[in-house]
C-alpha cells in the first residue's frame, strides 16, 4: 500500500469534532466523490441480494444461454454454465464488503491497542513492540497468507478474515504510536493524570478520541488492503470457491477462459467493482488526510477553512518521530530501526 507518509498533526480532532451545519460542504471534493462511490456500493451490497433476478449459483440447463452477452433477460450476460453475472455481482459485492469491513474493524482495533500501548509503556517495551511491527511490515504479507490459507482451505470466509486481520495491524500501529507519543505529554493528559484518573480511562477518554481522524484513515486503509488482498487470494483460488465474492467471480472467469472467449461481460464487472470501491476508499482517505493537514489541500480548497483565506504556512507537521525517553535496553533495540539514522549521538533526534 503506497499511501501518504503519516504526518502527525494536532488539528484534526477539533476540526472533526465540532458539529457545525454544512460540514459536508466543507469536505474536500475528493472525499465527497469517494463517499458517494462507496455509498453506492454499500447500497448495492445491502439491497442487491434481495432484488437480484436469479440465484447466482443457478446453472441454466439450456445450452443456448451459456456465454451470452448482455441482454434484457440477463443484463450483464451469462457465464459458461449459464449463470447470471448480475446476480453473482450483487452477491459478490456483499460478501467482499463484509469480509473487508470485518477485517478493517478487527485490524484497526489491534493497531490501536498495540500503538497506544507501545507509546504509553515507553522505553524498552515500546521499542520491542515497534521492532515486532517493523519485522511484520517488511515481511511480504501475500505469500505468507498463501501458506496460511493453503492449510486452512475450504473452511468458509473466517480463515481469510482472521488471517488478514492478524497481518493487517503493523502499519496502523506505527502511525497511531507516533500520534500517541505526540499527544501524551500535552497539558490535558497531564491534567487528567493529576486529577488521579486511571491510566485506562486516560487512554480511552483522553487519548483515543483525539486520534479519531487518524483511526478513521487507518480503518479506510485497512479495508482497502483487505479488499485488494482477499480478491487476489480468491483469484489464485485460495478461498471457498463455492461462495460468490468478486474474487471468486474473477477466479472462475479466468479458469473458464472468459478472456480467450472474449466474454468481457464476465470479468469486467467484478474487476471494475473492485477498482471503483478501491478508488472510493483512496479518495475518501485523501480527503480525510487533507481535512486534517491543510498543507496537502490543493489551492482551490485553501480558502475554505473557517471562512477566511488561509495560506498553508502553519507550523510544519513534524516528520521525524518524537523520541520518548529511552532506557538503555530501549536505545539498543531502537538502534536497529531505520529511524535511528536520524538520531544524534545521544540517541535522540
Amino acid at each position, binding site marked *: *500500500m503506497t499511501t501518504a507518509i503519516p504526518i502527525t498533526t494536532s488539528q484534526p480532532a477539533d476540526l472533526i469534532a465540532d458539529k457545525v451545519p454544512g460540514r459536508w460542504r466543507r469536505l474536500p471534493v475528493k472525499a465527497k466523490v469517494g463517499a458517494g462511490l462507496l455509498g453506492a456500493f454499500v447500497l448495492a451490497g445491502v439491497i442487491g441480494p434481495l432484488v437480484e433476478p436469479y440465484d447466482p449459483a443457478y446453472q441454466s440447463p439450456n445450452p443456448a444461454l451459456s456465454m451470452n452477452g448482455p441482454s434484457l433477460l440477463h443484463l450483464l450476460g451469462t457465464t459458461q454454465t449459464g449463470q447470471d453475472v448480475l446476480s453473482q455481482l450483487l452477491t459478490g459485492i456483499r460478501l467482499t464488503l463484509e469480509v473487508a469491513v470485518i477485517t478493517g474493524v478487527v485490524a484497526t482495533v489491534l493497531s490501536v491497542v498495540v500503538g497506544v500501548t507501545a507509546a504509553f509503556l515507553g522505553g524498552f517495551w515500546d521499542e520491542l513492540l515497534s521492532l515486532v511491527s517493523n519485522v511484520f511490515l517488511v515481511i511480504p504479507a501475500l505469500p*505468507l497468507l498463501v501458506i*496460511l490459507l493453503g492449510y486452512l482451505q475450504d473452511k468458509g470466509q473466517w480463515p481469510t478474515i482472521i488471517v488478514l486481520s492478524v497481518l493487517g495491524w503493523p502499519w496502523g500501529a506505527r502511525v497511531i504510536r507516533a500520534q500517541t507519543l505526540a499527544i501524551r505529554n500535552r497539558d490535558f493528559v497531564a491534567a487528567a493524570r493529576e486529577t488521579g484518573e486511571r491510566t485506562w480511562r486516560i487512554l480511552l477518554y483522553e487519548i483515543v478520541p483525539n486520534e479519531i481522524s487518524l483511526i478513521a484513515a487507518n480503518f479506510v486503509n485497512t479495508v482497502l488492503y483487505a479488499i*485488494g488482498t482477499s480478491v487476489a487470494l480468491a483469484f489464485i483460488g485460495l478461498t471457498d470457491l463455492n461462495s460468490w465474492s468478486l474474487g471468486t467471480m474473477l477466479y472462475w472467469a479466468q479458469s473458464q477462459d472468459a478472456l480467450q472467449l472474449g466474454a468481457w461481460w464476465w470479468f469486467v464487472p467484478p474487476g471494475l467493482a473492485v*477498482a471503483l470501491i478501491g478508488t472510493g476508499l483512496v479518495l475518501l482517505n485523501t480527503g480525510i488526510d487533507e481535512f486534517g493537514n491543510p498543507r496537502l489541500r*490543493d489551492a482551490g480548497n485553501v480558502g475554505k477553512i473557517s471562512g477566511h483565506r488561509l495560506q498553508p504556512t502553519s507550523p510544519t*507537521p513534524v516528520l521525524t518521530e518524537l523520541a520518548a525517553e529511552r532506557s538503555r535496553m530501549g536505545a539498543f533495540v531502537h538502534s536497529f*530501526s531505520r529511524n535511528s539514522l536520524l538520531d544524534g549521538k545521544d540517541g535522540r533526534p
Partner: protein
Amino acid sequence: MAFILRRLLFYIAAAWVALTLNFFIPRAMPGNAVSAILDKFPNLQPSAAKALQAMLGVDHAGSLWHQYWAYLVHIAHFNFGTDLQQYPASVSQLLGETIPWTLTLVGTATIIAFLIGTALGIAAGWRYGGWLDRVLPGLMFFQAIPYFFLALLLVDLIGVKLHWFPTGTGYSGGLVPGWHWGFIGSAIDHSILPAFTIVISSVAGWMLQMRNVMVTTISEDYVVAAQAKGLRTRRVVFTYAARNALLPQLQGFGLALGFVVSGAIVMEIVFAYPGIGLLLLSAVSSDDFPMMQAIFLVITFAVLLANLIVDIIIVFADPRARARGADR
C-alpha cells in the same frame, strides 16, 4: 557503516522470523501435505502415509528442536524439499528456472515505475493545485485496480483484439532459451505488456506519496529562503526541495515493496508468464505445500535484500546520515 550493519542484523532477524513461521505453520495447522495427498487419492492405503512422510521429509523423527535445526540446515543449503506436483524434481530446481524471469520483469518494471512516479510527484508537488495535481485523483483509479485485473483488460484489448504484443508465456515457442538475439528479443517483446501493467498500476502510488512529501517540504523556510535569494527554480526544486523529500519517499519504497512484488506475482498468472506467479498458482491448485513455503521464503528474502539496498542508498543520498555516521 554502523547503521548498515545494524540494519543487516535487523533483516537477519526478520528473515529468522519468516523461517520460524514457515517451520511452525505446517506443524500448527489442521491440514498437512500428507493428508492433502491422501484426500486427493482415495485409493491410497492409510499405510502409505508413512512412505509419503518420508518422501516429503516431514516424518517426525526426533524432537521438535532437532527437526528445527535440520530444517535450518536444509534451507542453508537451498534444499527446499521435493516438489509434490512435478515429482521428483526438487523445489529449488523449479524455483531456479523461474526466479530469473520474475526478478528481471518485476525488478525492472518496479524501478521504472518508482522513477516515473517520483518525477511526476515532484512536478505535482511543486505546482500543487496545477493541472498535474488535479489529474491525480483520476490516477488513483489505476492505483485501486488490482494488478491482475488491469492485466486482464490489457490482454483483452491490446493482446487479443489489437495484436500489438504477444500475450502468454515468456518467449515464442520453438526458441531455445539462451544468450542470443532471437531469444532475448522475443523475451523483451513478451515482457512489455506485463511490465506496462506494473508501471501503470503502481506509478500513481509513488506519485501521490512524493507529491505529499514535496508539498510539505516546499513550505519549509529554507526553500522559501532559497527562492528569495533568487536561485534558479530548477536548483530550488531539485537540490533544495526534492532532495529532502526523497528520503521519506525511499523509506516508503522499502515498505511498499513487498506489496508491489506480491501484486506483480499474481499478475504474472494472467500473462501465463513463466515466473514465480505461475508456479504459485499451480502449487495452490494442487496443494503443493513444499513449493508454497519455498516461494514465501524466496519472496521474503528478495524483499529483505531490496530493503537493505534501499538503506544503503539512503545513507549515500542523505548528507545528514553520512555526517552522523562519521561522528560515531
